[in-house]
């Protein structure tokens, strides 16, 4: 043992009851997976001010209406990953600096780490899980990536793929430079950019064929 004085240990044993209380305090009993966030207890209820948001909302994700309990300060990335179990959306930096969390909000690629879930309540959200058809047919972009041997570690892949989807919608016939511009908000630390660009060009090609 070192001679560091530690106040608070040996800590009290946390009883099962305490745990449950903690969970309730965290306002997370309504969701089986949603205990990531603590709510603003002091303000809740006491301040039913006009214009303030309600916590239980309906979110349109991948074409489904999902009822979900969302805290005020919750980002879309957290709601997707921890409330809705859509862990395909990755958190690489949580600061709009890497693009791993990119999803489509009303068809536009956006960093889900940097938007409040409440802000996009009325929007259509599409994540990587929403691209594949119910019968397992891959989205042309996914197919293109598969054809071209895809990514390396692929932690950035869901974000890149969502940006490619936005790209082929906005510009189905891009040059390689334009594709690079369209994907410039996504970082790949494996720097597999050449293969990614080739995949993007193939994605545009497959999309054109499908259209």
């Amino acid at each position: 043992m070192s001679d560091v004085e530690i106040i608070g240990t040996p800590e009290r044993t946390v009883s099962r009851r305490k745990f449950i209380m903690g969970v309730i305090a965290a306002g997370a009993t309504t969701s089986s997976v949603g205990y990531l966030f603590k709510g603003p207890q002091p303000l809740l209820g006491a301040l039913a001010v006009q214009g303030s948001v309600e916590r239980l909302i309906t979110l349109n994700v991948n074409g489904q209406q999902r009822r979900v309990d969302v805290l005020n300060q919750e980002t879309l990335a957290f709601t997707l990953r921890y409330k809705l179990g859509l862990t395909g959306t990755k958190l690489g930096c949580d600061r709009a600096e890497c693009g791993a969390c990119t999803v489509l909000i009303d068809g536009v690629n956006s960093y889900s780490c940097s938007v409040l879930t409440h802000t996009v309540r009325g929007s259509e959200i599409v994540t990587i899980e929403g691209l594949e058809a119910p019968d397992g047919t891959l989205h042309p972009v996914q197919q293109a990536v598969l054809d071209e041997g895809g990514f390396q570690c692929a932690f950035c892949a869901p974000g890149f793929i969502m940006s490619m989807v936005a790209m082929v919608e906005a510009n189905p016939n891009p040059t390689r430079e334009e594709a690079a511009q369209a994907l410039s908000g996504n970082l790949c630390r494996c720097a597999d950019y050449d293969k990614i660009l080739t995949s993007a060009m193939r994605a545009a090609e497959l999309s054109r064929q499908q259209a």
Partner: protein
Amino acid sequence: MAVIRDMIPAFELFQPTSADDAIELLIRYGEDGWVLGGGMDSFDWWKERIKRPTAVVDLVNVDELHGIRTTADGIEIGAMTTLTEVATHPELLANYSVLTDAASQIATPQIRNRGTIAGNLIQDTRCWYYRGGWPCYRAGGNTCYASAPTAMNREHAILGTSRCVAVSPSDSAPALIALDAQFVIKGSRGERVVDAEDFFMRPSVDIERMTILKPGELLTTIRIPSTWAGATFYYEKIEDRKAWDFALMTVASAMRINGGVIEDLRMAVNGAAPFPIRLEDSERVLRGQTPSEEIGLRAGEVAIRDAQPLRHNDFKLPLMRNLIRRAVRGAGV
């Protein structure tokens, strides 16, 4: 500081549907209130837990703040218009391309898709001492760490400093100054309209704010007069990486050239000072002149006459001079 914060503290969230309601809420919460536009700056502060608003007023549902309108004497951009919308708007592309050039080079596509034109103008400085939560002047403390002789200040200011040497990070600001834009500010006592170049706070006046906006005020509209429509524009941004990075320096100019002579012009840079600066001295040098390498160089030299580099940002002097030269060259030497 190595305290890893990361999780956003709780706040009350409001989504009013009108600017007036938003202003009312902001007045009610005063310094504890926070305007949420695109959020590209806000989230950073919240996640770092350096700024902890009690109430956040999300403007997403305030329709009157969205959109681009052509008016009798120019064009109006709602504060909540995204940078992508600005960068791709046909009328802006056709007649005010200095602004679309600027907007299209901001950060990344995703940031432009959510980030707003007002947010780009209002965003806080990126001085890493300040953003790191150091108790500097701008944070209400009594020190500028960034101007110390030992400091790492490659990105910092060479002009217009006063205790604080942080730079304004806005890429769209110099373009709007070049276009002689006006900003409409709404508050509890109605509207006021200010010139773009007067919108940005000098640290000598208030070291803790980047703009003249007071708590309870909203920037609602950007008005671009038709004065400079279709003029000869130049915009250039120099940054380290071609995406994400804040500018080391940007230059924007609008010139009216007639018979090979610069009849009139407006020119601004950012990344040089704690606020975007209009280059009136350079404009004076250039007005009435035929664009040439020599006059461009002179305009550049004039602009950096009073510049005072810190230990690591001496390069900004030649950079600023050269960008001004290039703007003149862009007018067709």
